[in-house]
């Protein structure tokens, strides 16, 4: 077949157009991300001050601050980690090191894949019924403990999936060597496999927790407050106190008509994004150190 020069040129033009379209499509998301960041920082950065970080919410936007929300978010983060980390890693160890490809393992695996796709607001409904109503004597109702348990269930599938990947990456020769020395399965797991996989597990857990920090819908659904003018006690009783978190405070301010509160929302978003950035940076540093060693 003979292609004419003109035909060849037109073909080349079409291909060039196609490549350009692909490049443009790839840029759409990145451009929006840039516009979003510039917009939010432009609105919010001037509002950021020590006063903003250390004040309780107020009816006057210029007096309001995010102290209760920030402390609430950190409190929730720590509690969620305390619940989700051991159970999630335990489940991952079970699936990778212990279970025997039986029916239980298959059911758990399908189940985790499905749970990861359940909309987060549904977890809020579960938390509302299970932790707020049925377990009220323990959790004290719409408390930070009930919120943390809800969040723990929400991030558990992500922790399990990440921890399994980290465990799978441990070289099998290490397990064999430990077994050859007469170690029991738990000794192999706890002294050889888990220490080797720990950086990977921690990276995955931090990324999962950073999702919990940004979540709003399930906590609103389980009934976290939108107006909190006190700090929870750092005690067992404090676990049962009502709470709010940064995303809910932001949502509350966005929903109000006054522009002053919108500026507060933008400043709150700046703080939230900085917190997330710090968490992600920690995860990346951990991952890099780990990669260098192996």
């Amino acid at each position, binding site marked *: 077949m003979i292609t004419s020069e003109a035909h060849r040129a037109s073909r080349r033009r*079409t*291909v060039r157009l*196609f490549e350009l*379209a*692909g*490049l443009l*499509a*790839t840029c*759409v*998301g990145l451009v929006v*991300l840039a516009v*979003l960041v510039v*917009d939010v920082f432009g*609105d919010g950065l001037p509002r950021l001050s020590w006063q903003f970080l250390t004040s309780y919410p107020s009816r006057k936007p210029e007096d309001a601050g995010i102290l209760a929300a920030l402390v609430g978010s950190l409190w929730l983060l720590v509690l969620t980690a305390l619940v989700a980390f051991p159970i999630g*890693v*335990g489940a991952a*160890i*079970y*699936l990778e090191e*212990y*279970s*025997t*490809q039986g029916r*239980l*393992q298959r*059911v*758990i695996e399908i*189940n985790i894949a499905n*749970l990861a*796709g359940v*909309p*987060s*607001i*549904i977890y809020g*409904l*579960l938390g*509302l*019924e299970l932790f707020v*109503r049925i377990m009220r004597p323990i959790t004290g109702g719409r408390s930070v403990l009930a919120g943390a348990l809800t969040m723990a269930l929400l991030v*558990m*599938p992500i922790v399990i999936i990440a921890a399994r990947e980290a465990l799978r990456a441990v070289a*099998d020769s290490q397990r*064999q060597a430990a*077994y050859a020395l*007469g*170690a*029991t*399965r*738990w000794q*192999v797991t706890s002294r050889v496999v888990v220490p080797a996989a720990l950086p990977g597990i921690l990276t995955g857990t931090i990324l999962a927790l*950073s*999702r919990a*920090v*940004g979540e709003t*819908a399930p906590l609103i*659904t389980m009934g976290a407050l939108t107006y909190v003018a006190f700090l929870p006690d750092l005690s067992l009783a404090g676990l049962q106190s009502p709470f709010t978190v940064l995303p809910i405070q932001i949502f509350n301010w*966005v929903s109000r008509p006054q522009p002053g509160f919108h500026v507060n929302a933008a400043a709150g*978003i700046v703080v*939230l994004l900085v917190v997330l950035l710090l968490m*992600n940076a920690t995860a990346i540093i951990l991952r890099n150190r780990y990669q260098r060693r192996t």
Partner: protein
Amino acid sequence: MEAPVTEPRPDPAYSATMTAHPPLTLRPPRRAVAAGAAVARARRERLIHIALAFCGIVSILTTAGIVLVLLFETIEFFREVPLWRFLTDLEWTPLFADKKFGVIVLASATFLTSVIALVVAIPVGLMSAIYLSEVAPRRVRGVVKPLLEVLAGVPTVVYGYFALLFVTPLLQRVYPDISGFNALSAGLVMGVMIIPLVVSLSEDALFAVPQNLRDGAYALGATRLQVATRVVVPAALSGVVASFILAVSRAVGETMIVAIAAGQSPNLTLNPFVPVETMTAYIVQVSLGDTPTGTLEFKTIFVVGMTLFLLTLGLNTLSHRLVRRFRERYE
């Protein structure tokens, strides 16, 4: 000393041998272990095994909890409101004196915002996936993929702020009749939020297409465009479609963007310029109020939740099936 040659672990076989010959009975050499100590050790091992299995079972309990909670309240609800009214009423007014429960009102809003999101996310996402997999140099791929992950990691409440206070005013400048709350702005921003999901999953599917298919097409004189659109995309179709379906599921379940930017007025309309209320936004609206537990209004959020759960479960299952079929073909 040479390292023993071990094969990379084929999971099932390995676990099978490990159970067939549990190393629990091995005793450390050169140390006399009393029979009692060995028994204690075996017992401890068994306890740990059970504890770990329990951790795995927590995830099953979570699913069971979700299903039971939703089912319980849903049954309670349908004792008071007949199913056919739920499905056929054309109004949604559970908070008024004259209560109507036409879920179609909320479903139409969810449908509208999702369609707008998909109109953005699917073409842009697929185009971008083709570009990253078939055209872009490896280095560009290495830079763009982590950036898209950042886009996916932005909390949805931030997107809500952006939709309400940046995109809506922008749209109003072009078309002044548009309402302050509208499905268009929420849908557009939700579309951008979903782009990374479509790109990442479609790109995986395209990248997995065997190179010899591409080489064959190039040998016949096809251009890069022809190879991409007539060979690679059709070959990866089930994987690509799976990513679209997952995008639908994500859009249907998304809450904060629509709750903030699309409004909380249950209107039965497909007009993208007026306020609407999606299923998820309704749950948020009721949760923010002081609805006493046990009332009919309280039960409605679980009924809407059940609808949402079944919808996303169906979509996710379909998507997983498609991915599995795709894998079977090429792996």
